[in-house]
């Protein structure tokens, strides 16, 4: 800013003194209407037999733009016709990194604000020291806002020839040197492409791309017919680079495959020139999945901050509605052995182990699935109806166990002491496992950005983050079980514990019922009937098993046990085809998770853009039937009267992106906002622009405020 100001002052001063024509390397800027153009030099003088860089600068009026060498769908690149002294010759423009300029359904590539376009000028060896030559550039710009205007500037620059080492021009040298330094260069990247009528796959590996995550990577081809310019470029990260998948342009669509694909690859602030040959993509250019966009809150601190967030998120997870029924189990067992300090410690550690092992297994599966290129996120296991079905049966079994229908690892005599016995160790471990599995549908505050970061890290970093999530979840129980003072506050064991246990069975029945409902959305009513039948059989088997435990005569015991096993085998035989057939999602699921009061429409990015263009605010609810936090938010915030009124008043549109079943588009949108799971609430302003992300726990006040604010944005 200061440099520009002083440049302007000095320029003005020089012009005022009438030095403009006399000073070497100096020309007056020309205003062509929407552009102020100038011709400037890097060095103070030209040396015979060398190359000097001069640059055309464009100061473009706000709201207008000029074009890159490939102008995209429309437009025209800036061109320069040189008139040079004999022997002098001009090279090609060194193009600055372009920007994307969406115009309606089209996409152009070019520049706004200010752009500097250097050109190498070859000085002949025979140039006479002491003479001053004039370089003349006839520059044609197409400058467009909504409409396009061809503008023309005749620029000239007086350059003195001297036979001494070049010195940078004190006034303009920096500007040209910076433009040259910033221009995209090859940077030792290896690139390979595969082209078909549907699209272009461009795999790039090399130093600057190693181990990085570049969700914003974008390829600007030199050839204007190669790709579909407005098409989405999908990024896949790899250990050594990245792979872009780009929809085909008209040349590729008609089968014209080039021998080489050249262009500029941008990754955030950096840009590189790429020249790709046809062939097999190198192994290191893919395999790490779609990189998540930078997390809104976790990106400054990277992994350490994400670990901290993960721990906090794990702690808060204890309070979330989905984990609660499982934790009630844990509470029951804690109460049972509260007065045996050693036993309590062992139980606490077993629970911790259960939590950690499950978290790591889940994280491993998640990382593996993403590495295989699947668009999965947190809670992905609940997108499989088979998993949900089995889980609902596990919940039912757990509830029946708490109800006393059968006992795990102990006999029916002395129910209270039984829990504290040796078999309870496996029970504690199992409780930990269950806690994590059902925790998945809940993303607590802090957890979402942490998981978002985790999925962008190499495996080790993300495992560390998941480990701390588990530590956070288990921490309160481990802390209690290691604190004799706290344990002493628990009442003494007695018959009350049996009552408590039976009361706590009911949250588990509730959890089972909820999972059955989720399953019905995924697998439809036929699947539901089969699952309910399975539930009936499971309950019957549990009762038979309980009966066998209660029998004193070995023969009847054996009979009941055998019947239990036979029935269990029957259940498995029914479940397998069910799990396979149940994968077909029902179309009604989107409607089912929305509230009755707030009319909604299914989410699509195109529809959001269209509504924004109409000037209407849009609220997008990324949700899933298995996401308890989402359901709670729907009930306590989104389907309340004030919110419905606020939507009406603002003429806002409520959109639901339902992730109950797998959906790559939704997974991508979540990842674009640094998330790996639901819920996510986005509010788009009426005047366009980016969305605001609402907190994960909604209140009616927060939603109405956000909607009101959106009408003004």
């Amino acid at each position, binding site marked *: 800013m200061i440099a520009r100001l002083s440049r302007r002052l000095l320029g003005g001063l020089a012009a005022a003194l009438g030095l403009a024509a006399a000073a070497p390397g100096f020309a007056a800027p020309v205003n062509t209407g929407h552009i102020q153009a100038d011709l400037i030099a890097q060095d103070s003088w030209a040396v015979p037999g060398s190359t000097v860089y001069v640059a055309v600068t464009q100061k473009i009026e706000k709201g207008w733009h000029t074009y890159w060498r490939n102008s995209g769908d*429309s437009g025209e690149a800036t061109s320069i016709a040189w008139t040079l002294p004999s022997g002098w010759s001009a090279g090609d423009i060194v193009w600055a990194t372009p920007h994307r300029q969406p115009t*309606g359904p089209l996409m152009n590539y070019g520049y706004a604000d200010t752009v500097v376009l250097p050109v190498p000028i070859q000085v002949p060896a025979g140039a006479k020291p002491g003479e001053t030559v004039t370089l003349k550039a006839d520059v*044609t710009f197409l400058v467009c806002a909504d*409409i396009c205007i061809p503008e023309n500037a005749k620029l000239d620059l007086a350059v003195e020839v001297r036979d001494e080492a070049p010195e940078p021009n004190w006034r303009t040298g920096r500007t040209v040197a910076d433009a040259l330094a910033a221009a995209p260069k090859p940077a030792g990247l290896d690139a390979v492409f595969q082209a078909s009528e549907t699209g272009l796959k461009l795999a790039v590996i090399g130093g600057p791309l190693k181990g990085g995550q570049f969700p914003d990577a974008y390829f600007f081809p030199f050839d204007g017919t190669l790709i579909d310019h407005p*098409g989405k470029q999908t990024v896949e990260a790899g250990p050594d680079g990245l792979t872009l998948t780009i*929809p085909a342009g*008209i*040349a590729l669509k*008609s089968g014209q495959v080039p021998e080489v694909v050249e262009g500029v690859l941008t990754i955030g602030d950096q840009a590189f020139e790429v020249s790709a040959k046809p062939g097999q993509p190198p192994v290191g250019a893919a395999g790490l999945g779609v990189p998540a966009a930078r997390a809104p809150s976790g990106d400054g601190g990277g992994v350490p901050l994400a670990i901290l967030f993960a721990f906090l998120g794990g702690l808060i997870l204890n309070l979330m509605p989905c984990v609660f029924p499982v934790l009630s189990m844990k509470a029951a067992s804690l109460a049972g052995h509260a007065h045996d300090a050693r036993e309590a410690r062992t139980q606490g550690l077993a629970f911790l182990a259960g939590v950690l092992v499950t978290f790591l297994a889940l994280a491993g599966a998640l990382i593996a699935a993403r590495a295989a290129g699947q668009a999965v996120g947190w809670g992905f296991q609940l997108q499989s109806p088979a998993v949900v079905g089995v889980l609902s049966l596990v919940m039912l079994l757990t509830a029946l166990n708490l109800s006393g229908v059968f006992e795990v690892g102990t006999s029916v005599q002395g129910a209270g002491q039984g829990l504290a016995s040796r078999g309870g160790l496996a029970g504690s471990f199992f409780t930990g496992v269950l806690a994590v599995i059902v925790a998945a549908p809940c993303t607590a505050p802090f957890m979402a950005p942490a998981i978002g970061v985790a999925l962008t890290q190499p495996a080790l970093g993300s495992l560390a983050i998941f480990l701390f999530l588990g530590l956070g979840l288990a921490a309160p129980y481990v802390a209690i079980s290691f604190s004799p003072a706290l344990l002493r506050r628990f009442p003494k064991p007695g018959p009350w514990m049996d009552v408590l246990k039976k009361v706590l069975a009911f949250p588990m029945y509730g959890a089972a019922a909820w999972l059955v409902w989720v399953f019905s959305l995924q697998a439809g009513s036929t699947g539901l009937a089969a699952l309910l039948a399975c539930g009936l059989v499971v309950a019957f088997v549990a009762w038979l098993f309980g009966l066998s435990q209660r029998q004193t005569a070995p023969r009847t015991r054996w009979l009941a046990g055998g019947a239990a096993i036979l029935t269990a085998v029957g259940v498995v035989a029914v479940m397998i085809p069910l799990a396979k057939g149940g994968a077909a999602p029902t179309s009604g699921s989107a409607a089912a998770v929305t509230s009755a009061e707030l009319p909604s429409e299914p989410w699509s990015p195109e529809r959001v853009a269209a509504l924004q263009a109409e000037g209407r605010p849009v609220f997008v609810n990324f949700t899933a039937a298995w996401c308890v936090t989402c359901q709670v938010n729907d009930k306590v915030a989104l389907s309340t009267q004030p919110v419905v009124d606020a939507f009406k008043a603002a003429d806002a549109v409520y959109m639901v992106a339902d992730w109950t079943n797998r959906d790559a588009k939704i997974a991508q949108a979540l990842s674009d906002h640094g998330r790996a799971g639901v819920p996510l609430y986005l509010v788009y302003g009426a005047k366009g622009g980016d969305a605001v992300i609402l907190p994960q726990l909604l209140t009616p006040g927060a939603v109405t405020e956000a909607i009101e604010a959106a009408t003004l944005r």
Partner: protein
Amino acid sequence: MSLTRRLLVAAAPILSLAPSLALAAPAPAFSVKDADGKTRSLSEFKGKTVVLEWVNEGCPYVKKHYSGNMQALQRAATADGVVWLTVASSAPGEQGYFADGGAAKKWAVANKAAPSAILLDPEGKMGMAYGAKTTPHMYVIDKTGQLVYQGGIDDKPTNKVEDIKTAKNYVAAALADVKAGRKPAVGVSKPYGCSVKYKA
């Protein structure tokens, strides 16, 4: 996005053919009102060669070619039995929008334009179906309804009138090839010009 999808749909038949065929997709059907208020559709021109020209009277590139080049092409083509349809896909309020058929005809008279018809497509439906990106953006459809050329009007993507003299006119070449019963030597080129001012 939807443009991409439409283009893919339009291009889908190509995919089953050998990649050496430059371009041989059936041209997308359309049904659009012309300047006289008559509904015109592709099917009525069966058996005739059809040229589609996207226009925006305010665009410098259109002005460049309406310095005489476009009109001459129109006259030569229509004299040869070719149907020449000039399409305006500018949305209301945008540059190049004709408020009614009268405005379009007034423009044509003032510029001595000689198309077979001017089609008014303010909703952009026909433009999107063809993936028209620029003004001018040219398409040639042969007698069997196959799209055999699409792209720029010539190979000099500038807005300077003097470049017309030295440019190779792709449309004239494609029409000559079609007339001689050949596939156009150049079936695809990069269209150039102003963006089509579609409804936002």
